[in-house]
């Protein structure tokens, strides 16, 4: 056929398109799951009234998808199984609640079972769902497997089917639709404040404050933008929420493209913490604590929460594993730093990211360095203390890992270093290497 246009199937692009459509369907309900390669399952329990009923909702979806260039067929029913069956094999847009008649007249393939079972059932003369719906179950299970009965029960509502949503479902949300899509950043900021104000009563009723918030902006052409902010402590003040999103918007600046405008903005409160009533009392709370917490939130909103960190500790002897930095918002505090045993400075102030190799002249087998060269600069050792032996963690590094003998070194100018010999001479290795690890005060 000369006029047939052929394109190679691009599975990834198709999947991405479906995922984008699924993200967009978030505007109707947060419970959206991808079904196979070309379908979406939406749980619209309790949402339909917001759009004027189920039929209106489905029409809205189909119209908007058509405007984005996607042809869609949809059906709403009591159960996921029935809806799937009607969409793929049936004609009706809606199945009335409790009515299983339309499903019964559909072919068996609509039960989401495999080809083999369908042809097996056809050989026995069973072609529609109605044929097997009221048959004795044990012989069916024995001949065609339990899966068949499971799918049947799911379609007819005898068994629950859980839908696993793609995106985390926020416990609380507040949204605003616009008949005229908004484009300007000022309008967006005003709307954020409005949404935050609307969300506050929800939080107050439950005695909660927000710690992680996401703002979802739905563009008219189907794109969805999502901004997330974190707070170190639970907060409820709408102005603070707006300020954090301001920082996040400022950080995005160039990449923020409003397209033809947003017609729906939704503020999701993803994580909450109990909100201490005493914290909410503006007078008794010190301005200092509020200031530092707000600063941390602002820095995290602009730079990213992983760039604002505090120290946390691990139970290990290996120096570079002993401590690390974790984001302040995830830091639960309470780790007491180790107290110095005798006040002597045995640990450096700066630890290099990786131990750096040195060329060293030292007495064998256990002696401290006499001279060494680090980063191409030679140093002469005046005083040294050590060795401090830190054994390897054989359970992590393997049994071949080498022991480290650490020395505190002072050179003739007074610079003080922390370096180690990697491996015991002749007991572990014939040529132990030396490394620089830290700098002292």
């Amino acid at each position, binding site marked *: 056929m000369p006029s047939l246009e052929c394109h190679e199937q691009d599975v990834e692009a198709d999947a991405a398109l479906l995922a984008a459509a699924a993200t967009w369907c978030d505007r109707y309900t947060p419970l959206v799951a991808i079904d196979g390669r070309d379908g979406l399952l939406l749980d619209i329990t309790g949402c339909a009234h917001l759009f004027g009923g189920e039929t209106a909702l489905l029409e809205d979806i189909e119209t908007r998808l058509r405007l984005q260039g996607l042809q869609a067929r949809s059906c709403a029913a009591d159960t996921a199984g029935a809806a799937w069956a009607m969409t793929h094999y049936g004609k009706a847009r809606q199945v009335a609640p409790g009515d299983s008649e339309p499903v019964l007249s559909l072919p068996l393939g609509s039960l989401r079972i495999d080809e083999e079972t369908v042809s097996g059932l056809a050989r026995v003369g069973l072609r529609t769902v109605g044929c097997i719906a009221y048959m004795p179950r044990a012989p069916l299970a024995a001949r065609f497997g339990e899966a068949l009965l499971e799918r049947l029960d799911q379609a007819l509502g005898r068994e629950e089917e859980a839908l696993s949503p793609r995106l985390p479902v926020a416990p609380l949300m507040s949204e605003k639709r616009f008949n005229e899509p908004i484009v300007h950043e000022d309008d967006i900021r005003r709307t954020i404040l409005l949404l935050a104000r609307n969300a506050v009563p929800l939080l107050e009723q439950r005695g909660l404050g927000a710690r992680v918030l996401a703002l979802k902006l739905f563009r008219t052409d189907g794109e969805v933008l999502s901004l997330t902010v974190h707070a170190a402590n639970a907060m409820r003040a709408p102005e603070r929420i707006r300020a954090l999103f301001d920082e996040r918007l400022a950080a995005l600046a160039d990449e923020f493209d409003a397209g033809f405008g947003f017609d729906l903005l939704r503020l999701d409160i993803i994580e909450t913490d109990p909100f201490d009533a005493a914290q909410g009392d503006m007078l008794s709370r010190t301005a*200092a604590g509020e200031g530092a917490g707000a600063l941390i939130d*602002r820095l995290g909103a602009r730079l990213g929460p992983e760039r604002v960190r*505090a120290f946390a500790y691990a139970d290990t002897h290996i120096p570079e594993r002993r401590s690390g930095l974790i984001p302040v918002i995830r830091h639960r505090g309470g780790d007491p730093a180790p107290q110095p045993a005798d006040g002597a400075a045995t640990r450096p*102030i700066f630890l290099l990211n990786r131990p750096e190799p040195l060329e060293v002249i030292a007495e064998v087998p256990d002696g401290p360095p006499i001279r060494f060269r680090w980063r191409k600069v030679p140093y002469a050792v005046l005083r040294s203390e050590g060795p401090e032996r830190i054994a390897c963690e054989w359970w992590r590094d393997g049994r071949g890992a080498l022991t480290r003998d650490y020395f505190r070194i002072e050179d003739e100018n007074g610079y003080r270093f922390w370096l180690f010999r990697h491996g015991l001479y002749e007991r572990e290795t014939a040529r132990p290497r030396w490394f620089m690890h*830290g700098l002292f005060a």
Partner: protein
Amino acid sequence: MNILERSALEQLARNMPSLPGMATPFITPPPEDGARLGFGAADIDGHLGGGLMRGTLHEVRCAQTRGIGIATGLVLGLLARLERSDRRIVWVSDPAAEPEAGCLYPDGLVQLGFDPARLIVVTPKDMKDALWAGDQAAGCEGIAALVMHVRGNPGKLDLTATRRLMLRARESRVTVLILRQGGEGEPGAAATRWEVTPLPSLTHEAFREGIGRPTVMARLERNRSGRNGVWRLAFDPERKGFIHVPESSTAQEAPTADRLDLPAASGKRPDRPAEMGQVMAFERAS
């Protein structure tokens, strides 16, 4: 009233509990604990008029990268003396500084007498973000101090930027310290500018070959409210203060900051032969 009486009144104001039914305490407590952050050593504090002025900008630099530990020791030893230890200290790090110096090590900070839980470490991706973070922190009343750890003399941290930091610090009473890793002294808005070089440590009486208390030479290069000076200091973690080190206690004189005076450096350059006549005793390897 003299200093002693004023500080007694401040102490009283801090300790007086708020009366029931009133949201704010009866006497407004003084803005901060003293306007000056002293080293704890009489000479240097006397020269500075009590100590470093708080709520403004200061600079501490070390001439070479390897001295960053020494300079940080001085800075953190000073900051450990801030009395309101519930307030946090923000440390903003230039991303260029990390590959050379690595990361702060809390076990070592504890041994200096500084509580690492007070630190909020901000690691932005470039200098522009670092300056923004510094501005935000300098304007925040809830923190005690800000340390801007920069490598060398970055172009973005110019006179305008330092002036901005100083003005914000003045409004919010945050003490801002610029810590230059391997930097030159340059004109800026800092109230005082220091160069830190290490000195051989004090000799420990019991263990003469060992490393005693770390000693530094702090040279005040620029002082807006007085003259310059040089002091030899060592940090005493028990007292949480610095002490003056007399010259005879250290084993060797430290080299001066003027590089032309260093005689031995040329002899150690890699393309020159080593000095003649050095004898090394090696133990038999068997």
